[in-house]
């Protein structure tokens, strides 16, 4: 083996470090790409793949057992280099429970006013939540290339009380808890989903939807 070939071989130490570092990239390894978002003139909404479902696995098991399960989601816009944040949407909270008798779902959004929905199927509950996740583009230059990142995470049962918060108490108090929560890495039993747009896009290139959204979150 030539000297050059030996130089580019990975040493055992490098393999060991790579192996140890592998779990750090767990979330990114699970990443997927999504096309450019839909745009209604004011807000961007990610176009998630049809295979995306968050009512699965452990969270669904907990719901089947009559427990409350909370999800938090956020959209972020980045500049072309994917490192500089242009804007973050407010963190949206979805609190779900499943009726033990008729097996329908209830969705509550504590920082979204009186928008509880009951009697939903699993698919309807997911669609209702995803429909509420968008980001306002007010103040974002229309000709700037942007990347969109969508993140969603299940809230661990121990953190449920802090993240769910209470409208009557203080929204800002709950927000501090959520920001702190999202800044931590997800645990093994807390599913996390993250999607990036396949390529950068500009607002002026996006086709506008016919109907604007009635509410604006960001």
């Amino acid at each position, binding site marked *: 083996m030539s000297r050059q070939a030996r130089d580019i071989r990975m040493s055992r130490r490098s393999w060991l470090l790579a192996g140890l570092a592998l779990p750090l990239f767990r979330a990114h390894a699970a990443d997927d790409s999504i096309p450019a978002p839909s745009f209604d003139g004011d807000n961007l909404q990610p176009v998630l793949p049809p295979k995306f479902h968050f009512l699965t696995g452990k969270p669904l098991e*907990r719901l089947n057992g009559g427990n409350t399960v909370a999800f938090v989601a956020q959209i972020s816009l980045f500049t072309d280099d994917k490192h500089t944040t242009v804007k973050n949407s407010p963190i949206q909270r979805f609190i779900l429970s499943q009726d033990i*008798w008729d097996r329908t779902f209830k969705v509550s959004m504590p920082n979204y006013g009186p928008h509880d929905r009951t009697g939903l199927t699993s698919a309807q509950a997911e669609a209702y939540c995803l429909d509420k996740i968008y980001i306002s583009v007010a103040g974002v230059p229309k000709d700037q290339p942007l990347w969109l990142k969508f993140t969603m995470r299940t809230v661990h049962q121990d953190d449920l009380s802090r993240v769910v918060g209470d409208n009557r*108490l203080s929204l800002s*108090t709950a*927000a*501090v808890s959520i920001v702190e929560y999202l800044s931590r890495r997800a645990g093994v039993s807390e599913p996390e989903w993250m999607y990036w747009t396949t390529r950068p896009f500009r607002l002026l290139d996006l086709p506008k939807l016919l109907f604007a959204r009635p509410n604006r979150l960001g």
Partner: protein
Amino acid sequence: MKLAWLGVLVLGALACGPLVAGSQDSEFNVNNRYTVDSVLLNTDGASFDLAAARDERISSPLRKDILAIIGEKLNPATLDDLARRLRKELHARAVDHHILKGNSLDCVKVVFDVQVQPARFDIAVPKFGYHSQLGWSGAVEGTAIVNHQSFTVGLVSDGDELVERYAGITARYQNNRLGTDLLHFSFDYGTLHDQWNGSTVDALALSRLAEGSFASSYASDLYRSRQYFEPALSLRVAKPLTVSVGASFESFQDQMASADGRIESANAALASVRYHQPVEGAETQQDFDAGYDLRMGTKALRSDMVYSRHHWEFRYTITHGKQVLIEDAMAGMIMGQAPLFERFVLGNNTTLRGWNKFEIDPFGGNRMVHNTVEYRYGAFQIFYDSGAVWDSGQTADARNSVGVGLRQGPFSASVAFPLREGHIDPVFMVGMTY
């Protein structure tokens, strides 16, 4: 300024966290409209109804709180709280909860799922106390628990329980499931060094001089050290009734002999019956506890001493709110020649409080009766002890004492007065009693 606001918000989040923890989950759960009709505990694959059966590991207050949710609307926040308390009391790795459809429409069953810790290590202080006339007594032990087996090693120095002060190392192996939950096995080992109070040494020496005295007939000589092995089997015959059988192999070295001097043995067959029945009412909780212990030294076990020791105890506790009334009665009888550690003692941290055991009888007696009545209100306690310890053929001299104290959990501090003519020396006691 921004940082100041951020600080306020973070502090607010920390301060309000526990406050909001109890409420918000409940109002969002669609099942909060259903009524709880039963509560099940699921542990080790076995499930039982908490209202119908009692788990001894769960305290009465927690059981009461769990049963209180029956008939109420489902409150997930309450279930979270109860699961946390169950986890603590059962030393479980985790306790989750879920609900099932109830027996009728609009009712649900609550199931607590207990995940048992496969192994853990505990440090405990089973005894720690100070008696102003007897000094300090204490024990500390570490226990490794693996599934249903536990291994305990401890250090002890006790001048309270027996005639002598003993100090040394103890060890215990326990298997709480020998094929079935009803059958337990334990093996105790101890190697102890014994110290004798001057009054015991003097009194025994004087007694030996008198030919035909009780001491030469009924008690062993003083010993400097002893070792014991005690294997035992316990069978829970019925829910409140447990029967144990076993053997005790105890050897001790004479106080006066040289280091390689004479070793005596007191090997005994053991048997005990214990009855424990808690009765919970709406307002009051009652607890009946009764037991009988027999230790029988026999030549069949190659014992140098042949004797039988009988001990009866009955304890009744009634709790009503902050008020607790305790009645504790016990009696004992020894027949034959028993080693000194088997003899009965009164006048310590738990019996005839206010008296000094060496003043009552410097080397104990082979007959004993004792009764305690104790009243507690919150942390305050007042007690009245009466009892007698004597040897067969002698007359029993009944003694009484009263005391007051403060008790918070296992911690207690009290002062007790012997009731007698002449001067009264109060005895102060502090410590932890379980």
